[in-house]
């Protein structure tokens, strides 16, 4: 079933890659270029999954996770982090905040899709 997925990344090419993979699998995609933009786009519509970068200007991925958990209508929305961050501390921080999946770039589109399916398939 088609899902609505919010992609948050300050790299347009990264958003493009993720978007292509997801739309190819029949999902709908909303794009945001950083955490702040993402919060602005969470206006009550149904979002099944948020896929977010960690390192972003304005509001980073961890901040976004924390903010999303505070929004009642999105508090259970699974969040998948896409990142090149390697520090365990960041990962632990993200997990504590509520990020579910943690995928390290580079990844292959199939790997991303598999993780998406496992979460909201």
């Amino acid at each position, binding site marked *: 079933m088609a899902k609505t997925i919010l992609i948050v990344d300050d790299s347009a090419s990264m958003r493009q890659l993720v978007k292509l993979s997801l739309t190819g699998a029949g999902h709908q995609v909303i794009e945001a270029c950083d955490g702040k933009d993402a919060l602005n786009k969470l206006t009550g519509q149904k979002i099944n999954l948020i896929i977010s970068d960690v390192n972003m200007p304005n509001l980073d991925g961890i901040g976004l996770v924390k903010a999303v958990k505070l929004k009642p209508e999105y508090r*259970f929305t699974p969040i998948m982090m896409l990142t090149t961050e390697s520090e365990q501390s960041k990962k632990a921080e993200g997990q504590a905040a509520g990020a579910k999946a943690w995928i390290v770039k580079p990844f292959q589109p199939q790997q991303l899709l598999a993780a998406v399916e496992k979460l909201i398939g």
Partner: protein
Amino acid sequence: MATVTLHPASDLAPARLSVHGDLTIYEAGETRQTFLALLAQDPGPWALDLGGLEEIDSAGLQLLLSLQKTLVQGAQVIDLPAQARALVDLLRLESLYPLGASGAGEELRDVR
């Protein structure tokens, strides 16, 4: 949002609970409260008319299972839309199947 209505029992049929909208983890807490309030009015049995469900997830199914356990003589599901049916199928939660495809369920529906 889930809209829940309990149609009182008649001589011919048990009370009928209809659920419209979504029954997901977002609505589960609030819906449970509603169910509890309705239970105070009518301890069951109920017929569950889920035909107006738009979306349901495991939390929603769990809530329905819990409701079945709580009601005196349980609850019979009389209608189930495609998406919820798919989930019930997947989870093989026989107790949530509509009462016999052409059996009791139909009868109840006729009565309604």
